[in-house]
């Protein structure tokens, strides 16, 4: 177990290096860009060249990458040329907001998916299963922005029950709590649609296994069998997938944050991409990839804990 974790961590570090270098190289292939960005469109070429040398951007990519990584490991990701402040401070704030939204959504999505998925999958092709399958398939099919538009149309424009934006400020006239409702709903519909289908198909698969029949023919009631024999087996496969949703919830909320003007990590990344704010893109990518790899590691470890057949 320890050995496995160590190996995975090593793997992770390697992938992180590969990823960070890729992004770094991609963005820094044309060194003039950064200085031009800082000085604006009206600066002369010689001014740009001068600043490029000043910032050390004329040195080889590998040297600059090593320097960048050295600093990054110490928590210094450079400065954002657009926001004119240290990237780490900027990230910290935005990431915090996103994690809050992610945590609330995760807390809604996971129980909902498990309950609906298990109830649907335990009686394959029953009416409840049919209904849940169509519902989840539709949820997963409606893009977040479309779902946002529909919910906004109903709850904001038509009924006026909820705020249309969630900037997390108290001066909008809506409580913070109310500002979370719509973003969480949109994320939940989209993501749960996928997860419910996952849990359901795993449950269906388990219910077809001979050991379920063994338990029933021992004289156990159907619900007893579902609780004692099917449940744990049915959650083994989706477990990793459930954890992987954390990635989506941390880095994939660009659309929801844009929809509701929510000051989060995803929107920061979008703005950085649109304005070519390289330091932010690099730092953000590193964070996003680390989250992916960490959830993968925890997913694997949890998987092993759940399934006694898997030992390393």
């Amino acid at each position, binding site marked *: 177990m320890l050995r496995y974790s160590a190996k995975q961590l090593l793997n992770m570090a390697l*992938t992180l290096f*590969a*990823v960070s270098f*890729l*992004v770094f190289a*991609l*963005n820094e292939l044309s060194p003039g860009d950064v200085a031009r960005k800082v000085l604006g469109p009206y600066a002369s070429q010689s001014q740009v060249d001068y600043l490029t040398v000043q910032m050390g951007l004329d040195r080889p990519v590998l040297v600059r990458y090593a320097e960048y990584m050295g600093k990054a490991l110490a928590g210094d990701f450079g400065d954002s040329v657009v926001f004119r402040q240290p990237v780490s401070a900027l990230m910290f704030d935005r990431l915090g907001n996103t994690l809050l939204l992610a945590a609330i959504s995760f807390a809604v999505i996971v129980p909902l998916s498990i309950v609906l998925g298990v109830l649907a999958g335990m009686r394959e092709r029953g009416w409840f299963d049919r209904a849940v*399958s*169509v519902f989840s*398939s*539709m949820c*997963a*099919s*409606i*893009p*977040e*922005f*479309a779902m946002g*538009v*529909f919910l*906004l*149309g109903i709850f*904001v*424009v038509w009924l006026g029950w909820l705020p*249309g934006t969630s900037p997390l400020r108290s001066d909008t006239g809506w409580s913070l709590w109310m500002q979370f409702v719509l973003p969480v709903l949109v994320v939940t519909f989209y993501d749960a649609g996928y997860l419910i289908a996952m849990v359901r198909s795993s449950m269906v698969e388990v219910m*077809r296994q*001979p050991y379920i*029949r063994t338990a029933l023919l021992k004289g156990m009631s159907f619900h007893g069998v579902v609780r004692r024999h099917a449940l744990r087996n049915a959650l083994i496969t989706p477990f990793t997938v459930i954890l992987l949703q954390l*990635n*989506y919830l*941390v*880095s*994939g909320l*660009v*659309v929801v944050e*844009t*929809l509701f003007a929510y000051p989060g990590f*995803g929107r920061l*990344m*979008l703005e*950085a*991409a*649109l304005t*070519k704010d390289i330091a932010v*893109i690099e730092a*953000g*990518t590193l964070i*996003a*990839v680390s989250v*992916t*790899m960490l959830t993968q590691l925890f997913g694997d470890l949890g998987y092993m804990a759940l399934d006694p057949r898997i030992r390393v």
Partner: protein
Amino acid sequence: MTEISHDLAASRLASASLVGAEAADAGPLGKVYSVVTRSPLATVGATILLTWCLLALLAPWVAPYPPNQIDVALVADPHPSAQHWLGVDHLGRDILSRLIWGARTVLTVAPIAVLGAVMLGIFLGLLSGYRGGMIDVVIMRVGDTLLAFPKIILYLIIIAKFGASAFNIIAVITLSSAPIIARIVRGVTLDIKNRDYVAAARMRGESAFFIMFVEILPNARGPLIVDFFLRLGYTTIAIGVLGFLGVGLPPPDPDWGGMVKEAYGMIFVWPHMTIIPSLAISSLVIGANFLATGLREAALDG
């Protein structure tokens, strides 16, 4: 269920010759028809997809107005009317016409991107699974690295760097989907390469490429077809999202995600301008997903 399925399988086998002969008479199209109509879900999905395909194909004839025809006079009352069934947008362009022409864009870009990913993925997956060894390690490692990027961030990085064009969007979707397809194909290949008929092909001296593409690939078509439609749905969403975020296909050509974005600021005044294109994109994805789910169910029923 293993033993009882024996009883059933045997009776099914005995009747297989009848069914097989029937399907063979119907030809390939008839076979597709009979598989799709076996599942109500697949039927609904296929109908939706076909409708959009027809509209896109016939856009020049069925669209009532040119998609980019601006008529500012209409903005005074952009709501749906007898002349403009779905209303007009903030520039007075006919929404129905823009949807129909927009379907053309989506239904070209998405299938090309998915097909690109499928072809690349099939090639890499077959190679990785059949050859194994270092080739396998390298291909899977590179794929894992690509998959470690959250998709949307990968899109943003690449498009920020190289700009938003149909080609770049297709490239980035191909690149980010191919590793997943490669994984599916690799899994199937690992299973099939140990089947006896592959051993038999080796015994008669078939080349590795022949075995990969003629002996193995045709037997992976089931999961690949299901995945194609699922991925068509996801890709449609991805294209819509890029449009919505403002890094999609460049204006003025109609793009469903872009239509939502342009009108999003006016949702309080003219909600139909955003809701209608949102419905359009949702229906297309639902069609693809229903078809995929239905096909998978039909396949499981055998």
